């Protein structure tokens, strides 16, 4: 099962390595990991996408909570939530491909953010699934480079994750 963990950590040096070290030391999976400061400068928010059985994810949550720098852990996938990931894709856009790539970007509501004679760079935001679908839809041979941020997410409705 895929889980999205949202973690509030003290904005201290080494907090990221404590979390990452925990996953490698105990053999847990990290599919994506994002981290950035929040509106409260003393806190950073991390989003980790992991996979594992319910027992494993329960252990991950408990082990994360045990870290002294971790303030709060929530499994977003337990409730209704929104998840987004940002991707930049540089594609070959020359000759007959140029129009096709533009059309495909429009269908996926992507934006072309950089243009050169033979390439487009497309910015696309959405769920991991949508980003995967876009890459599937492109002709493999046209993809020059991709970079993805990893997932960030937030719970739906008025519920908020805070200290």
């Amino acid at each position, binding site marked *: 099962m895929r889980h999205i963990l949202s973690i509030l*950590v*003290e904005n201290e*040096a*080494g907090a990221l*390595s*404590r979390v990452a*070290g925990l996953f490698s*030391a105990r053999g847990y999976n990290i599919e994506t990991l994002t981290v950035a400061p929040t509106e409260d400068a003393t806190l950073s928010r991390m989003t980790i996408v992991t996979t594992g059985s319910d*027992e494993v994810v*329960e*252990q991950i949550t*408990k*082990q994360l*909570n*045990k870290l*002294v*720098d*971790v*303030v709060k852990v929530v499994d977003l996938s337990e409730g209704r939530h929104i998840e987004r990931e940002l991707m930049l894709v540089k594609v070959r856009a020359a000759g007959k491909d140029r129009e096709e790539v533009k059309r495909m970007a429009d269908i996926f509501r992507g934006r072309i953010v950089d243009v050169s004679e033979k390439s487009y760079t497309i910015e696309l935001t959405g769920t991991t699934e949508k980003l995967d679908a876009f890459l599937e839809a492109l002709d493999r041979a046209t993809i020059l480079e991709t970079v993805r941020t990893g997932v960030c997410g937030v719970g739906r409705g008025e519920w908020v994750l805070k*200290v």
Partner: protein
Amino acid sequence: MELRLPPVAETAPQLTGAEIAIRCLEEEGVEFIFGYPGGAVLFIYDALFKQKKIKHILVRHEQGALHAADGYARATGRPGVALVTSGPGVTNAVTGIATAYMDSIPLVVLTGQVPTRAIGEDAFQECDTVGITRPTVKHNFLVKDVTRLAETIKKAFHIATTGRPGPVVVDIPKDVSNQTAPYHYPEKIALRSYNPVTKGHGGQIKKALTLLLDAKRPMVYVGGGAILGNAAPEVTELVHLLGFPVTNTLMGLGSYPATDKQFVGMLGMHGTVEANMAMQNSDVLLAVGARFDDRVIGNPAHFAAGNPTRKIIHIDVDPSSISKRVRVDVPIVGGVKEVLTDLIAQVRATAQRPDPAALAAWWSQIATWRAKDCLKYDRAAAIIKPQFVIEKLYEVTKGDAYVTSDVGQHQMWAAQFYKFEKPRRWINSGGLGTMGVGLPYAMGVKLAYPDADVACVTGEASIQMCIQELSTCKQYHLPVKIVNLNNRYMGMVRQWQEFFHGNRYAESYMDALPDFVKLAEAYGHVGMRIEKPADVEPALREAFAMKDRLVFMDFITDQTENVFPMVPGGKGMSEMILSEEL
């Protein structure tokens, strides 16, 4: 414009980082600091030199410093403190830190670091202390600002000693120890991200009570958490109140008096038949401060499948210990002392008691397992049996010594044959299984309790891993008694090679052993070599009568003796090998 200083600066004395560190330790009531000087900690040693309250114990290797601080903490319940220099000082200390971490022992470890401007430049004796120690500590800090030092040390003691205890490292760069700041030691510290639960959930305790009172084949399984949480009196009271059988893990020995009739012995890989069979066949299992680890229940699938209707109640201060290897029906997160106190109150508040007929039937079942007499050995042997030495040690010390051990067969025999009546008397490395801990553990214990008998049960392989501490024992006059069960083999390695590797004793024979008698004498101690069973007791009596001397007793024991019962790795806990089966 008027310059306004914060009030603390007006009244607080200006101290150097080194002086602040030492003052903080004084505030915490630290008696002993175990350490070894070096370049990065010279200012701290200078501050130590100028004070009288804290006694520094100079070890011969940083590993010894950590183990001695650890042994002190295990015996007293107070945090152990160690001080080592940067680089190799830290890497030598890592084994000791990891040993304490695996057994949840509170330590505060001050480490020197290269000056802040040199960090990351591959400076002389630099290592990434926070990075290297991170997976083996409860928490660690690098203090880059001297104004944060006092507060950080306060946090270190708070984190080390509360919740599930553990070691905390405070890394202090050399320039920070020489800069000055106003000294103010905070009385209390609040950490929003660290608030261990102490009181158990009332509803869960109620559920536990119902299960316990309805139990037909109950079992109480008590681990090191009961010792760490000072809950031995509560364990004993509850077990007496309910009339249930009770077992202790290796780390829990002493949390329940071993001579009591309700005690069925230690459980686990080398546990008794009665303890392991009662665990496996119980219908309600109360686990207290234990973690169902691989050396205790063996294969968790076998443990679950062999008895799918068994209900498990688990009390632990660490939520991550619950349902980690074994699914638990009633988890209770909280301090074991607090939870047991509440549980005892609830038992006392009800007139209901467990079904006496069912309990009697269960006890008679246990009696049949006990009748196997699984710890029997050849008492008439012409050669010294290691078990016999431990039995005599128990008699000679009247069961009231502090017993430290190293790791291996001798450790298991000490655990099986020395009947611990009180908590904190049995000092050993259970989790990490660190050979070499025994002698420095004994040093830490002897410093804490100078009038008590302190025995270090060891083997000729383990003792050589920290043998250099015999010199420390001489310097600080620590007359511990070393009981060396010398079988010329790494006994436990040899045993596994005999059972599982076709008697191919690869590199487990200890060739070219020193003459331990002469070695002890060279360090300024007394050495004895004992070769006959009849000489065992007189030698022990003579050694323990020498109150002011360290005595190294080198017992030449049976090379082929094995530890029984034994649950082979990966097997279920009821699948024991007994001595007569070979």
